[in-house]
């Protein structure tokens, strides 16, 4: 009888021990794959945010804590809009754009929505223009060596969806709306539609492409319209500052703190540092859990193998009496361990990936995809542990004396 057939036959004849061993191995691999997958994709998202937002700075009311950059205006506290004018008139080097926001709750056709007031770039640029021609008093190329003043687009062509990519929009009328991708679907509204908000009629200018952020569920209109309709007065929740490069952003912090001492200045690095720390912790813990669970699995496999050897003494004795060598017997048990390791590792990879794909969006707001290299890691490690745990029982089995096996009644 072939070795392979002996192993398969033995596995299916004793399914309970198979399942127990398989579950132990799979559990360890599942934990590793799930946590690592979520961590890796979360780090990728942070890296992407840093690339696109890395030079951005947030000006917030004092005492506001921030967990997510994209919901920086949803804390309920306000500060005077005159801070925006102050920044526009200050003309700090490195400031590419300002995006003040005010967020209020509203309803459209009885559907609760988040209405965000934003100030178009044209208004910020207009106030900046009131300070005259900067090149006369502040030559091109500041001592920071970066960032000439950006030029207003006079071509008349406006990218209406720039809010999704650049966090600002050039022009926006007082009764014009821009919808996020998800809320547009929910409301069944597209460009040109008329919507009633806070007792006033608005026309939808455009629908933004999906961004994967909270902005997909928002409606955007002119800041001053939101202030008027919500009776909040000239206030904002946040001022988002787009610096043209990371080099300028670093020096900008000092200037901003001096210009607006009664505010909290937050960089993207600070916003994400908590998430980066959590990711690092999760990654390290995943290896710890993996190690612990595999050790437990190894102990379980060793226990099951010893019991298996004891249970099959007469069978092993018979095989040896028929000519099976000690090496053959060893291979029989180790072969079973290899199959358990491969199957457990594969099953653990599948289970862990599915778990990560379900939990990733819910826990950290990222989409998770399968990571093939984790399959290799999981299967190899699980197989190694299974074989290691089965080695001593396999050696015991290979040293059995057939005569003694038959004598044990």
């Amino acid at each position, binding site marked *: 009888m072939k070795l392979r057939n002996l192993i398969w036959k033995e596995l299916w004849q004793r399914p309970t021990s198979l399942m127990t061993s398989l579950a132990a191995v799979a559990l360890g691999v599942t934990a590793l794959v799930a946590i690592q997958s979520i961590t890796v994709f979360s780090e990728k998202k942070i890296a992407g945010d840093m690339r696109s937002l890395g*030079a951005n700075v947030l000006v917030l009311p004092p005492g506001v804590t921030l967990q997510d950059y994209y919901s920086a205006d949803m804390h309920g506290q306000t500060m005077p*809009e*005159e*801070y*925006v*004018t*102050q920044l526009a*008139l200050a003309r700090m080097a490195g400031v590419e754009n300002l995006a003040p926001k005010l967020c209020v709750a509203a309803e459209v056709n009885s559907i609760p929505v988040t209405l965000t007031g934003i100030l178009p770039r*044209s208004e910020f*640029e*207009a*106030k*900046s*223009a*009131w*300070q*005259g*021609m*900067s*090149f*006369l*008093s502040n030559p*091109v*190329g500041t001592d*920071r*060596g*970066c*960032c*000439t*003043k*950006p*030029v*207003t687009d*006079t*071509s*008349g062509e406006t990218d209406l969806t720039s809010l999704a990519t650049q966090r600002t929009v050039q022009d926006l009328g007082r009764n014009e709306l821009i919808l996020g991708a998800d809320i547009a679907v929910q409301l069944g509204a597209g460009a040109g539609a008329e919507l009633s908000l806070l007792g006033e009629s608005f026309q939808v200018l455009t629908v933004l492409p999906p961004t994967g952020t909270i902005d997909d569920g928002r409606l955007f209109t002119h800041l001053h319209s939101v202030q008027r309709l919500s009776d909040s007065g*000239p206030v904002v929740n946040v001022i988002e500052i787009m610096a*043209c*490069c*990371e*080099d*300028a952003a670093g020096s900008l912090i000092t200037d901003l703190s001096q210009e607006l001492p009664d505010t909290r200045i937050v960089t993207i690095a600070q916003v994400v540092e908590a998430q980066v720390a959590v990711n690092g912790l999760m990654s390290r813990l995943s290896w710890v859990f993996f190690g612990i669970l595999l050790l437990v699995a190894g102990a379980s496999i060793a226990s099951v193998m010893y019991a298996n050897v004891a249970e099959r003494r007469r069978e092993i004795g018979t095989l040896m009496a028929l000519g099976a060598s000690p090496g053959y017997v060893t291979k029989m048990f180790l072969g079973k361990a290899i199959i358990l390791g491969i199957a457990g590792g594969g099953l653990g990879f599948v289970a862990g990936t599915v778990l990560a794909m379900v939990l990733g969006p819910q826990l950290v707001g990222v989409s998770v995809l399968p990571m093939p290299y984790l399959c290799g890691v999981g299967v190899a490690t699980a197989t190694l542990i299974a074989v290691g745990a089965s080695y001593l029982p396999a050696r015991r089995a290979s040293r059995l004396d057939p005569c003694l096996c038959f004598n044990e009644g």
Partner: protein
Amino acid sequence: MAVIGRRGRATTLTLALAAVFFFQPSEVLAESAGQSSLATATRQQKFAFILFYRTNNAATQAMYKVLHAEVERRDNAALVPLNITDAQEREIVEQYDASRTPMPAVMAVAPNGAITGVFAQKLLPAHVESAIVTPAQTQCMRALQDKKLVLLCVHPAGSRKVPVGVQQFRSDSLNVNRTHLVSIQAGDPAEVKFLQQLKVRSDISTAVTAFMAPPGVLLGTYNDKVTPTILMNRLAAAGQCCADPNCKHRQAASAARPTTRR
């Protein structure tokens, strides 16, 4: 009877029209004090320095003191104090968005309506001096604030010929409605300060053109050989960062370098 009826209706209509014109509510016809002061300054070709304030506190008084002293010693400046809480002045407050400016604030408005400076919370004599600009500069600033491209042609003595390349650039269908031309003589004594700031000599032998874009960026200065292609390329490359190797814009920039000669 029909004639009397028509005459009666005509008389009634005439009386009604007369009542509308001569008995308007007073707030529709009368200017506010601020509007009146601004109109007077414009007529007199003076720079109006509007002092916006909310309360007559120490900061407002300090700002008023400096501004009053500077305006008094000039014959081309006028002071217009304006309380932003005064309902009569709502139109001016909204026009200049003063309710969203840190108070107190001084806004300098040239006779042509260009805003030549805004100074919030603190005013120095040098601020007033910097806000009183040359006539050509007010034209440039007004055009820039109207979001137009500005081509400032500085002509040598005895010439007013606009460079061919500049004319071609302006007449291009893409630019015809968004470009403003300002012509000055290099030797004009009223423009000495502006030309010094632009680093254009008064003894030039050929025209020099300064190309500006809103909100107030100098794209380059060119001699009379400039072509419309050079100007278009410069405009397309405008607003991108300069020499910083870490700048995200520089990494993506691909426009040709401008040629600038004086």
